[in-house]
């Protein structure tokens, strides 16, 4: 058999996002990595909720289910329980996954079914034409918040860690190479992988992630995480992060050596907690940079394994009754007509 390529995973449907939308890049990266995962299109399923981003499954030649708002997570859970052998992906948005679907998302994360959740965060409701979302910043002016939003935003990765997610990462639509790496790591992780992808909505929230994508700004505002490596950033790597007790601090490499810096250990839950709280506005004195890459990864039993483990154990432990025995139960009597 010929090796699979991106066209094998591409459907014949026209892609219908606004020109320039960040969703295009994410689609492209997903189509690029899928052939490398060793799973055929027929073993792969994309389940989405509702939103611009949730149109995603229509563009892939895999199995796909475009569900209802907020419930891709629970639809995918049922599917994965029944068919653990499938490669299952959830596509959701900041509104879909964190507002209406918040409950289903956190429960999926704590159960840790082995699937990938791609949370397209554009900090806005795209499909409904531009209301603030649960990740929009305080004070944001939108059609539904003409005086500025008074809703305190979620920090999606901190939320995921709070729900005991076993894999938490962040990517960016405009950094395709890095995003592909994150997606592949998520696919390799055995358990629920939550990947927050900063996605530009050029129609309703253009430039929301400019500090992390703009060539002139990004060096000072983003921190690219690599396992086993010191936390260091800046155009020349002139800044580093040290841990002062539990307090992260930005330091100049003029004053510190590499040995002083915090070494990234994605298996360290406490450090992941601290990293997830690197959530400052990226401009300003002593502002912590925004981390990208894998913040946390932990190996914990997967719900579907535990479920099938119980089913198998029960099957082996108890002799299965025939259906007739089941229907009869333990207490029967016979009446002669």
């Amino acid at each position, binding site marked *: 058999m010929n090796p699979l390529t991106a066209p094998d995973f591409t459907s014949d449907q026209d892609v219908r996002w606004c020109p320039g939308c960040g969703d295009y890049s994410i689609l492209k990266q997903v189509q690029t990595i899928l052939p490398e995962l060793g799973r055929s299109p027929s073993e792969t399923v994309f389940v989405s909720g509702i939103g611009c981003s949730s149109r995603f499954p229509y563009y892939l030649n895999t199995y796909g289910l475009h569900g209802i708002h907020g419930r891709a997570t629970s639809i995918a859970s049922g599917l994965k329980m*029944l068919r653990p052998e499938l490669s299952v992906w959830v596509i959701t948005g900041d509104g879909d996954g964190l507002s209406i679907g918040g409950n289903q998302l956190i429960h999926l994360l704590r159960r840790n079914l082995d699937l990938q959740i791609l949370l397209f965060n554009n900090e806005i409701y795209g499909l409904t034409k531009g209301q603030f979302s649960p990740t929009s910043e305080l004070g944001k002016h939108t059609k539904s918040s003409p005086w500025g939003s008074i809703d305190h935003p979620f920090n999606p990765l901190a939320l995921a860690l709070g729900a005991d997610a076993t894999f938490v990462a962040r990517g960016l639509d405009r950094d395709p190479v890095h995003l592909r790496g994150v997606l592949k790591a998520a696919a390799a992780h055995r358990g629920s992988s939550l990947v927050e992808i900063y996605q530009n909505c050029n129609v309703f929230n253009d430039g929301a992630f400019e500090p992390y994508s703009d060539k002139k700004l990004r060096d000072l505002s983003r921190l690219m995480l690599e396992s086993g490596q010191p936390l260091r950033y800046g155009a020349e790597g002139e800044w580093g992060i040290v841990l002062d007790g539990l307090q992260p601090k930005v330091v100049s490499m003029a004053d510190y050596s590499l040995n002083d810096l915090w070494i990234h250990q994605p298996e360290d839950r406490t450090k992941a907690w601290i990293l997830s709280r690197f959530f400052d506005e990226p401009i300003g004195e002593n502002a912590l940079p925004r981390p990208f890459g894998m913040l946390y990864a932990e190996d914990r039993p997967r719900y579907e394994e535990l479920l099938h483990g119980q089913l198998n154990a029960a099957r082996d432990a108890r002799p299965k009754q025939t259906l007739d025995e089941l229907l009869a139960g333990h207490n029967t009597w016979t*009446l002669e007509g």
Partner: protein
Amino acid sequence: METTDLLQATILFAGDSGDGMQLTGFQFSNTTAFQGNDLNTFPDFPAEIRAPAGTVSGVSGFKIHFGSVEIHTPGGHADTLVAMNAAALKKYLDEVKPRGLVVVNRGGFDAKNLHLAGYSDGAQPLEEAKARGFEVIEVDMSRMVREALIDSGLGTREAERSKNMFALGLVYWLYQRDLGPSERFLEQRFYNKPEVLQANLKVLKSGYHYGETAEIFNHRYHIGPAALPAGRYRNITGNEGLALGLIAAAEKAGLRLFYAGYPITPASDILHELSKHKERGVMSFQAEDEIAAVTAAIGAAFGGGLAVTATSGPGMALKTEGIGLAIMLELPLVIVNVQRGGPSTGLPTKTEQSDLFQAVHGRNGEAPLVVMAAQSPRDCFEAAYQACTVALEHMVPVILLSDGYIGNGAEPWKFPSAEALPPIVPPLFREGTPYRPYERDENHVRRWAWPGQEGAQHRIGGLEKQDGSGNVSYEAENHQHMVKTRAAKVERVAQFVPEAHIELGAEHPDVLVIGWGSTHGAIRTAVQNLVVAGASVAQVHLRLIHPFPRGLEKLLLRAKAVLVPELNLGQLHPLLQATYPKVDFRPLHKIKGQPFLASEIEEVIAELLATLETV
């Protein structure tokens, strides 16, 4: 000692929640079933989990109606009330027949118990009951039990706990039941606690012997076996039977059963029952809410499982959007609603039939699905099996309506053999054939392909789609075509479900009584009584409510008037009236959280017959 022959009797066991009345009632019904009677039982639990001991709100009751004739309801007023304390007497005395027998545990009527039951100081409820004409038999069960167990090695409190067995033994004597089945039950239950076993056996026998020797009763009763169809029987509750029906359907269809639910009274027992059958591969998923439950089930249906979710009213409301999705996806899904009193949280432990409109119409858009109803505890197995069959063979969601009265009630059930169950043949995709997700057969049914199958990748969703290809389509003509096609597919189901038929009574009756769900037994008893009395009455009971079954119109038109009794303000009635405008329908409502008494229906039929004659 006289023995009186009876055709049927109703006994109400009542006591404090801690008195073991459910077990007592259950034992009595088991034994009675073994003796060949037909029967029907209904538990009445307190709504609070731990209501204060001795109070009226803490009373737990168990009603059993049994006879040598067909029994279809838990009975109306009781012939015998067994009251273990004052609160039980207070709660249930008005449900005893005039001059009925009331057996009380004297020890449950001391000053403290009277006070807890809310009687005013100096009240003498037992004397009052006697004055009202009840035959009150006082037995100091607590003392008797203590004495019987004096050498048992059990502490006083532990010994006292077995006084329900004393009451059971006494009532066994009164109604001439065998001790054997309960002795065997106790042996199984306490096999590893020999002291407790001996104590319970001893107390059970002392109760029986007390009846024999104490000469406190004027009568014993004899109720011979019923002429039930020959075969093997077991007792079954509605919820248990329903769960077994789901398991059987999955196995017959060769699919895995995937059940998702969120706990809610009175549907939780379905979740409990299915959770027991892991060795058969039954998957039961306790979801975080009803939205997750229905959508997880949809995911499993997409994956090729027999997907089922069950709930009650408030949970149904949450599942609504998911059910709409299943309609659009045209996937098989069974949604069980074990109805309770509404609206909102309503009356969680009481019964009602007020979710029919919700089942038939309660969704956005033109969203038809199949609505079926179970009619009695022993009918739940077949109802569930049929609901699964329709869902799987027609690729359509089915709402199966049950209610608290059916779900918790129990009856003897002549269970079928696995072999006799009709095959279930879903329209499966076969690998190697071309696949277009919304291509249909002559019954408008699409084929079912699931992830993992080679060559059938497809994307489906809640957006309107092009017939055949399944691609998203907003095209005007296609939408109208699809709306009509989904409706026609549901209508077509009637061709595959048995025709409506007169279950009992005249083929051309003056009054036809049509019902659905748990009113079946009360209607049947009422119609039976009138038929025996020579009245021109008949009964039709619906399994299929949407669409209505074939042949219904013809039956309705043959009657002069059609009575529609329902435990709501009239929900089947307007649906029937809109569908069959030429028929003279007469609604009958009751909405008290209680089932109909047969007598209530009988009276209304009789009145209706009288008015028809005078016309």
